[in-house]
């Protein structure tokens, strides 16, 4: 049986017909064509699929699309300004070389966006702890940590 659902994705209401078992990650990627959200493990460990659900980072691979019918979801495609300028977090990642293959990156960007909203000036330990649920196989995290601090700086400057 299929379910008619509405998700407010990046500010736009999107409708989809999905079976109950459709993972939110698959719904975003395949039903709605938003392929920026990546899937690296489908068991909750890697964090590639992290999106913001009503502003909070969650694993879209561990959420059924039907469960969150009506919710607001932000994906990596929705982080830039309306006029397409990359967000401070995105720019900081570019500036600090916080990505290599880019596969983990959307998950980090969503996580860090929420992290800095809650804690605009995190300490080094808070940064490491804040990104500790996301795996990256390429960067060794060094420049991701740098990028989070840099993003905090940019956000403070632009506030």
């Amino acid at each position, binding site marked *: 049986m299929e379910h008619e659902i509405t998700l407010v994705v990046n500010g736009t209401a999107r409708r989809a017909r999905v*079976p109950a*078992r*459709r993972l939110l990650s698959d719904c975003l*990627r*395949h039903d709605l*064509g*938003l*392929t*920026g*959200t*990546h*899937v*690296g*493990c*489908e*068991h909750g*460990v*890697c964090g*590639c699929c992290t999106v913001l659900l009503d502003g909070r980072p969650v694993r879209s691979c561990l959420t059924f699309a039907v469960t969150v019918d009506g919710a607001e979801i932000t*994906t*990596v*495609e929705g*982080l*830039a300004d309306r006029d397409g300028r*990359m967000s401070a977090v*995105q720019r900081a*990642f*570019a*500036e600090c*070389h916080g*990505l*290599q*293959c*880019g*596969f*983990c*990156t*959307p998950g980090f*960007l969503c996580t860090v966006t929420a992290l800095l909203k809650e804690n605009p000036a995190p300490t080094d330990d808070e940064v*490491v*702890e804040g*990104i*500790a*649920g*996301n*795996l*990256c*196989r*390429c*960067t*060794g*995290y*060094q*420049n*991701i*940590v740098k990028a989070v601090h840099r993003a905090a700086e940019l956000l403070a400057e632009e506030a």
Partner: protein
Amino acid sequence: MTTKLFGAPVQRREDPRLLTGQGRYLDDLGRDALAAAFVRSPHAHARVRDIDVSGALDVEGLVAIYTWEDLPERVGRALPLLIPHPALTHGRTAYPLARDVVRHVGEPVVMVVAADRYAAEDACALIEVDYEPLKPVVGIEEAVQGAQLVHEDVPGNVGAHLVQEVAAADGRGAREAIETSPHTLAFRLDIERSASMPLEGRGVYARWDGRDLRVYSSTQTSTSVRMAVAAALGLPLPQVEVIAPDVGGGFGVKIVHPWPEEVLVPWAAMTLGREVKWTEDRREHFVSSAHERGQVQYVRVGFDDDGRVLGLDVTILHDHGAYTPYGIIVPIVTSTQLLGPYKPGAYRVEFTAVYTNTVQVTPYRGAGRPQGVFCMERTMDKIARYLGKDRTEVRAANFIRPDEFPYDQGMTFQDGRPLIYDSGNYPEMLRMIKELIGWDTFERRPGLGIGIGCYVEGTGVGPYEGGHVQITSDGRVHVSTGLTSQGQGHETAFAQIAATELGVPIERVSVVTGDTRRFGYAVGTFASRAAVVSGNAIALACRKVREKALRIAADALEADPGDLDIADGIVHVVGAPSAAVPLSTVAVLANPLRYAFDEETAKATQFATAAAPDRPPVAEGEEPGLEGRDYYSPIRSTFAAGMHAAIVETDPDTAEIKVLRYAVVHDCGRLINPMIVEGQIHGGVAQGIGGALYERMVYDQHGQLVNASFMDFLMPYATEIPRVETGHLETPSPLNPLGIKGAGEAGVIPVSAVIASAVEDAEGIEINRMPISPSELFELRMG
């Protein structure tokens, strides 16, 4: 050269798309394609008696089910053995779908194609395969005993056996040299399996339009996949194109080709006349791609009072898993790169590559070097301990001196060429790493230890890569090379090379990699070779284009080409900047036209140019267009080097091991982009720490991989990785025009050796097996 981009930390050109969700990874393509899934063997070793698909036929959305018997003869053949070697006397490869016998858990048995992956998995779950279980061979020791066989026709499970010997200056062999040494030691070392584990798994997507086949694959080598697919499907090469889209990490596993899926998915697309896509999931990746590292090493070493190695005799047992599609590259690399920056008096190395009923072994970043370095560095530490000397002193006593380069180690390297180091400065590097970590001022106490590890890495192996550079009439520079990218920033590094060589702003340069439509000849991305081989090829191609541009501009400016230079995309007479012509115009002039499309091209039409009427519009020996192609084929590998040091703390009660500091000094010749190189080092170190303290593939006695998930295969998070401190040394390679060496694998190579060294120092217990967990350290303490 006015635009000094070579060597600058230029921001990456691939980032804007990857940061905004606009990357195009394999599973992002082919939204309407059918999905493939596989029934994979649950047994490590079994005979397939019968396959009953009837239960799956009613699954909604099912399109097709294929077993080996359904495959045409050509498609069903055993996969190629990519790198034959005379010592690989019993090379074996798998069939795309299991033929009679399955030899590891995860081997594909049935292919299902359905409307989507959900339906495909539903069907897989309903297909019943009747297996006759056979006794599996698990672990090196069991394989060596040879009581059970992985392949009936491979006696003793031995796939390959190779002895290499380098005699001492006086002609004596290693064993003889050891016998007569003042001191000798003998010990055994163990390294366990790990895997590349990119966050994006493998994947294949194929489209067939009735005549041409287009295949997208998350691969490290699109050109080779193309040849392999064409061969397997019996298609003429020009009818097959293979594209590597954005690839979410490779680290070695994606250099193997063709994977069963790379043959089967295109074949299914042709057979069904529909687009078909397969996206590997994480569980599949654990059991059906490849692993690496597992070795047992028996070492004997003889040395003098200064710790100088007079003879070294290493016997390696290498676990090759069930198949050898990539030949015996890994144990060859271990055997040769084991020598590191040292020159032992005499060296004998013997390896036996054995089959086991586990996932096949193919290169993972480092490709055998971490094991070799572990062996050599443990040996150095043991000598120091035995003699009561500082560990760095013993190393220094064995170094190749700077004035001894090029240094011939007297062996044959993985590319079949002599193992001759091109350049290096190991004593200086040792001084730097000691200073960076504070070796001489380190205050040792129980539970706090310092460790060191040194390595040399043959990079930039041949046979060749090519580059194509085209300047179009809008002044843009289009660069393409055949090898692929998996996050190494090639689009940026190669654009830096082109911008520097051609004197154009980098914004005007675009780079395409891994697309056989753009460049058909290539080898692939592995062995830290992209920057060296493709980088130099692109530089050479640029030089050709530059020369042609100067020639044409010289004509237009009535100047001597020798008096011209290019800056900011404009060719000008040196010292007379007003006498100038932009490259866009040169590109127009390079291509005499009959038709005009815009203002620029109008300048190149027949009545606009003042071409000499007595000469053909395109001079003899010339080609139209401002473009050039060139290849770089290195005579042999370049040898990068590095030294790492770490300080670790061990908890006296819980036996937890914490890396407090990690320092790296490395030398990869001239740097194209220091930011990217540093990023490669960081990533490598993190993988190394994973391999030293967290990651291992755990098989039970039945051949089940019991930790086939990210919950239990412990790749480190940010919390597990210390800050990495780096220092750089640059000894340019004399072997190539740009003076560069590879850097892609550097970070990972010595980490297990370094951590073992530091833990041993902290604990005073010999560490002979890696990785090491708190539980294992506890058991060691208990004795």
